[in-house]
């Protein structure tokens, strides 16, 4: 286990550009626990979009450009199950037989999904300062099946005593995002997110939270298009807001 007084934060390209508040909240949560958070300046993307589209050479080139961001033996914390899953599970496959395979394996081995790090490593204790609220939790498929950390978000939210968790039907079913799937199979993806948003709405939750911004972009975008007032929040932003006194 690498030392945990310092961590690298791998923001993911989606959060860097579209959901920076989620990333910032994740970094602030870590800092509040006494961890020095380093944001490597040269980070861009884990390579997943190209990898899942079959463009492995392109994925490898982009993944390779990240390796130099994490030179020291300290954890790499990723606020996303799917990008974390890409690094931990698929980088070893992508880099197999490459000259920098060992460096990739080394980073993969110390990659943590954010909620996993907060619960397993930091054993974070949260104090809920927010108003009573009903939420539904959407656990991303990659957090659930690739990283095997779907229960961490549940245990974090369970620490918030004014938050009631409502459970949607078919909770483990994919929301239909799937990266380029949402573009290549737009109508199937649209049907899937319709089912997902219907199930979430039926819980009467006021807010939907998840550990992946890909799912939230899909689910939140669909709520918005459907003219629904339901809010979506990344877990880091949600936890930060509930525990620092800001209204969610």
């Amino acid at each position, binding site marked *: 286990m690498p030392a945990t007084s310092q961590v690298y*934060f791998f*923001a993911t390209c989606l*959060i*860097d*550009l*579209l*959901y*920076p508040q989620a*990333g*910032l909240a994740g*970094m602030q949560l870590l*800092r509040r626990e006494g961890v020095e958070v*380093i*944001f*490597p*300046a040269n980070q*861009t993307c884990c*390579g997943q*979009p*190209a*990898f*899942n*589209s*079959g*463009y*492995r*050479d*392109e994925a490898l*080139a*982009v993944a390779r*450009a990240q390796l130099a961001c994490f030179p020291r033996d300290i954890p790499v914390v990723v606020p996303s199950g799917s990008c974390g899953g890409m690094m931990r599970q698929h980088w070893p496959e992508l880099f197999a037989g490459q000259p920098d395979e060992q460096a990739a394996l080394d980073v993969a081995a110390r990659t943590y999904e954010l909620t996993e790090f907060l619960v397993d490593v930091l054993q974070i204790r949260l104090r809920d300062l927010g108003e009573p609220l009903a939420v539904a939790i959407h656990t991303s*498929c*990659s957090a*659930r*099946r*690739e990283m095997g950390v779907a229960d961490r978000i549940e245990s974090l939210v369970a620490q918030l005593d004014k938050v009631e968790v409502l459970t949607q039907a078919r909770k*483990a*079913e*994919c929301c*239909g*995002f799937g*990266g380029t*799937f*949402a*573009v*290549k*199979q*737009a*109508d*199937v*993806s*649209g*049907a*899937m*997110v*319709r089912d997902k948003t219907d199930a979430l709405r039926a819980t009467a939750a006021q807010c939907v939270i998840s550990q992946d911004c890909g799912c939230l*972009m899909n689910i939140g*975008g669909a709520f*918005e*298009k459907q003219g629904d007032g339901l809010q979506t929040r990344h877990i880091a932003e949600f936890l930060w807001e509930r525990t620092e006194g800001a209204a969610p």
Partner: protein
Amino acid sequence: MNQTQAFHRRIDAALHNDQLRRNFRSALSGIQAKRETQFPDDTQLQSLREQARMVRANALVRQPELLEQLEARLTANGIQVHWAETPQQANTIIGDILQAAGARSVVKGKSMVSEETELNHYLEQLGIEVVESDLGEFIIQLAQEPPSHIVAPAIHKNRREVAELFHRFYPDIPYTEDIDQLTQSARLILREKFAAADAGISGVNFAVAETGTLCLVENEGNGRLSTTAPRVHIAITGVEKVVERLSDVPPLLEILTKSATGQPITTYFNMISRPRQPGELDGPEAVHLVLLDNGRSRIRVDEELLDTLRCIRCGTCINYCPVYVQLGGHAYGTVYPGPIGIALEPQRIGIDKVGTLTSACTMCGACGEVCPVKIPLPKLINRLRAEAVNEQRTTTPLLGRGSLRKPSEATIWKLWQQMYSRPRLYRLFTLVATRLRWLTPGSLGGWTRYRSAPRPAPRSLRELAMKEGFGSE
């Protein structure tokens, strides 16, 4: 129309059929719930999966010698073995056997391999009457449709649709939507067919090399009747169905029935080892086994793709697929739909023919999680996506590799690579995108048909982090 356009046309038809989608949602939710009652203890499930995986993996590694052993044992038992490289060869073999036996009518148990060869169509052309005796298969034979699921072929039809079909073909039987009464009607119709049939055709679930035993798993007794009542029985299966020992069967059978239908055991489990012996009162006079390759040897060459052949055709990956539940089986346009179809069919038929199926996957991993023999389906589908746009390993005899590469798409990924592998260029891009966020298009093709367009934040996380005093090393 190319394969992608044809696929999208079928998808469009499926998505606009609300009744069909309701039927699938309802049926699959039921199957999932039943399966889950069979596996209350996850540790036991994982240990059973691992046991089943090892049995199948071992059989695939030793397949050539096991097939030789199987042939020797079957032959010694009096079962005639035939080898077919292609679907056409399999059909010819079966047609010849039937004609030599003077068979005019055939009852069939369920067999997906016979769907690969389009056997019914071939036999009908020879003037042989073919009756499907599995209730689901019987229904879709009336409807003249292919199976939409490998275990529950008529899963796409609800009881009203089945009732109307029965009424149309058997107007003498009073109309009913009662499932028990419909089943009873089918039973009466089929009884006569079993009694009159000259030959029976079935599939095989496991072929045991050690003993020369053909195992057949079924619920309706139609498998037993098809394989015992007529004077000739012809079994057809893929070469990968061979297992080494009789003791390999119980773990496979247990996880097959629990996974497929949520049953601890099926109503019938048949072990066929020889034709009728002198002095025996029943059973067929002749038993044949047709072993079909149809691309399987090609798949077996690649050590990663080989895992595809572990499949025991339980359909669990299909039952849990969030794409399949929206589309149903017919939209795939192949014999095998769902995740196993996406993995198997491009390998069996060619990426240039059906490789576009690989786009019908979100990589959610639900299939791989439930597969009883632990086939890494998402990994296989990802590999096929890679093969479709760029030949990966030259030693693998996959058909049609690289055939789905589109110059426009390849250029986009090259540009993507340029931007995301050059941090300074990427930073410039995020700077421009955040400052000019009001220029973000509000319409993004298919995405914005169902969702609002995402819009860059006013400041990137990089900028916010710096402002909040986080170091960048």
